[in-house]
C-alpha cells in the first residue's frame, strides 16, 4: 500500500511533519512497515483540504489530531 503525504508549503504549515511522524510511529508499532510505503509529494492541488494524504489513489484530508483515527480506519483497516 502506498501512502503519499503532501509536503507542499500549505500542508507543511498545517502539520505535514507531525502527520508523517505519527504515521511512521504507528506503522512501526504495528509492525507493518513491509506492507505500507510512506512517501512525500509536492502540492496535490487541494490545499484547502490539507494535510493531503493519498492512499493509493484516494485523497484524504488529515490533520495531526486526526492522524491516528485515519491510520486505524484507512491504513490498518485495509490490511
Amino acid at each position, binding site marked *: 500500500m502506498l501512502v503519499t503525504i503532501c509536503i507542499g508549503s*500549505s500542508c507543511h504549515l498545517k502539520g505535514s511533519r507531525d502527520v508523517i511522524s505519527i504515521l511512521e510511529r504507528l506503522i512501526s508499532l504495528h509492525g507493518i512497515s513491509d506492507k505500507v510505503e510512506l*512517501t*512525500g509529494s509536492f502540492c496535490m492541488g487541494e490545499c484547502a483540504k490539507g494535510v493531503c494524504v493519498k492512499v493509493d489513489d484516494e485523497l484524504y484530508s488529515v490533520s495531526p489530531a486526526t492522524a491516528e483515527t485515519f491510520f486505524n480506519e484507512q491504513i490498518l483497516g485495509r490490511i
Partner: protein
Amino acid sequence: MNISLDVSWKSLNKHGEELCGDTVGILKNDVSDIFVLSDGMGSGVKANILSTLTTKIVGTMLRDGANISDCVETIAKTLPVCSVRHVAYSTFTILQIFKDGRAYLVEYDNPGCVLVRSGKLEQIPYEVHEIEGKKIRDCSLNVALGDYFVLMSDGVTHAGVGNMMSFGWGQARASEYIRKACSMNNLSAPRLTSMICKACSDLYLDSPGDDTTVAVIHAVKAKHVNIFTGPPQSYDDDAVLMRDFMTSPGKKIVSGGTSANIAARILKKKIVASIKYNDPEIPPIATLEGVDLVTEGVLTLNRCANMLEQYNKGDLSDRFFDSLDADNGAAMIAKILVEECTDLHMFVGQAMNAAHQNVGLPFDLSIRMRLVDKIRQECEKMGKTVTVRYY
C-alpha cells in the same frame, strides 16, 4: 581568458567602537571589477568618514576612466583635515580586475596585497611613484585561474601586538598563514575571509586593538546558478520559462511545489519527494532528473534570504558556516549562492498561487516577489551578477 570572481570581505571593529574605520567598496563597469579597501586615520566616526570618502572617490573615478594620479590628487584635496592631527589621511588598496584577465593593483600605506598562486606566495613587482607627496606603489599583472588576492588593513598585520606577539602578527606570518589556508581544496572566498578574521580575533584575544579588515578576491571559472520559482501567469508560458531555464548554463534549482510539478510535466520526469524533515521549519527536498535541487518554495526561500542577509551583515562565524552546511533545502540554496555562484539567474513566475490565498495559515505565503527581490539584493551586495526574468 574567461575569469569570474568569488568575493568576500569582513571587518572586525576596534574594541568598543560601533563604527568601523575601514571601508571596502566594490564597483563594476563594462570592462572591470574594482575593489577598494581603505583605512581612515584614527577610529570611530572620523575614520569611518575618511575611509568611506576615499573608497567612494577612488572607486568611482577609476570606474569612470580616471587615472590613479587624478584620484590621489582629488583625495588629497577633498578629505577633511582632522582638527587634532592637522592632517587628512586615509590609506587605500585598489585592485582592478579586467574581464580580459589583466589586473591593476595600487597601494598606499596599507599592508601589501597577498597573492597566492598555485599554492605559492607570489612576489608582486611593484613600481613606486610619488604623487602629491605620497609614495604610491602600483603594478600591472595577469590573473591566473585559482589566484587568491587578499587585501587587508593594518589591523591584520598588527593583530596581537604587545599581547600574544610583541610586534603583532606581521605581514610575513599572516602571508604564510594565508598560503597554508589556500592549500585546502576548493576553499571559497567566504571561508578564507572567515579563517583570517578568526585568526586575527584570536590574536587580539577577541578584543581587537584596531579596526581589522580582510577582503578576498578569488579568480574562478564562472559559476552560473539558475533558480526557477513560481508558476507563470499564463499556462502557455510554462514551456517558455522551462526552455529558458533549462538552456541557461549552470546549476539548476527549482524552488516551489507547483513550479516543480510544472518542471516535471515538461521534462516528462517524475518528482520523488522525500519525507525526511532535517529541520522542523523547512519542508523536505525532492529529486527530479535533469535538475540539481528541488525544494519547497517560499518557506525555504524565506529562510535562505535571511541567511544571505546574516552573511552580509558580517556573520562569518563557525556557527554560521555550520548552518550553511546543514542538510535542509534552505541551507543548500544559501550555500550554493554564497560559495558556488558568481552569476545568478532567476526565472520567476508571477501567477497568484490559489493554494496560498488560504487565510488562517501562520505564515504569509504570498511574499514570493519580495523574497526574490531580497535574494537579488543580497547577492548583489556580495558582488555577484544577478539577472531576473519574470513570466
